[in-house]
């Protein structure tokens, strides 16, 4: 029986080491899946509510038609949902440009005993879609036409 050439021995050894390394990293990432998340979604919060007053982040979509501005002009109420659960949020301050209904948001703050989320900070979450303003105002048929023209 022929012994492996040193070159092939190194190739096998290094490949095995790489597979072990990737496996270890995947296991670590899997173990971190809860801790490494930047925020909780509303259904996490419904299933496992944090203690009132505990600082957490809540992330989800701002529900259409839920955004209301109070009489003081600074405080807003809205509802964050993820399709399964919804959490009412109250925030007082300046909102980022990308904060609109139907768009993603991450709120930092804590849960009140009555179940409302009191946010101290709002971050707007952008999605992966990029669309020019002119296109967004068009109807679907106009959009297809415009895209077809550029191709």
């Amino acid at each position, binding site marked *: 029986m022929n012994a492996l050439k040193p070159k092939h021995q190194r190739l096998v050894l290094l490949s095995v080491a790489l597979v072990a390394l990737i496996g270890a990293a995947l296991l670590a990432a899997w173990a971190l899946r809860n801790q490494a998340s930047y925020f909780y979604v509303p259904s996490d919060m419904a299933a496992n509510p944090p203690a009132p007053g505990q600082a957490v982040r809540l*992330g989800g979509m701002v529900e259409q038609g839920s955004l209301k501005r109070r009489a003081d002009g600074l405080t807003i109420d809205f509802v964050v949902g993820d399709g399964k659960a919804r959490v009412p949020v109250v925030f007082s301050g300046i*909102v980022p440009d990308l904060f609109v209904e139907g768009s993603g948001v991450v709120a930092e703050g804590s849960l009140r005993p009555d179940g409302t989320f009191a946010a101290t900070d709002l971050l707007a979450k952008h999605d992966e879609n990029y669309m020019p303003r002119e296109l967004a105002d068009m109807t679907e048929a106009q959009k297809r036409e415009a895209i077809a023209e550029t191709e």
Partner: protein
Amino acid sequence: MHGFANPARFLRIARWLTPALLVVGLAMTAATVVYGLFYAPAERLQGETVRIIFLHIPTVWLGMAGWTTIAVASFVELVWRHPLAGIAARAAAVPGAVFTALGLATGSIWGRPAWGAWWVWDGRLTSFLVLLFLYLGYIALADSVDREGGSSRIPAIFGLVGAINIPIIHFSVTWWNSLHQPPSLTTGGSAMAPAFLWGVLAGVLGFSLLFGGVVLARMRAILAGVQAEARLRRKALEG
């Protein structure tokens, strides 16, 4: 494969390929920046802020592609002992680190108006910052091996182990809830309107050519340094 490991043949090809890559890369990069700043449309929600993606996407792409280069070259060096592979890995480190830093800076500038924060500790941003630290560690390690003597296999092993961060960066937005959006460009298609997509793709190509030119230039410089040193040593022995 072994043909390219021959330094003389490599130098013959690199002599004309280096300026060609640099010139074409610079021209495409300049065209992308001009298009992004003056001709691209404003985005539906982000408005004018969107213009920075023409720099952000190419730079972060090269930050990750740079480390992938280091990892592949390190693998080739460890298994086949090609001296040129080790030189290629060392040459890719500094430009890779520069593009990573640029990617972090442009992302931060985009994040302030779009998200409302310069920096957040979510999975994507944190793993990308780790990439910058890995580059700095690799550069320091490769330099000290150069200066103090030691096996060039040490930085090569570091380059391979560090590559584990690349899939973590890529999947961080899928595995964990993060503030950073999921990828817009995937093998399945693009979530970008054509007006943004083509500009970004041209930027990625142009910056990549530029990166290739810089890496080749640095490889030639390292090879020239090795030759000069050997010549000095020979002279000292003769004299």
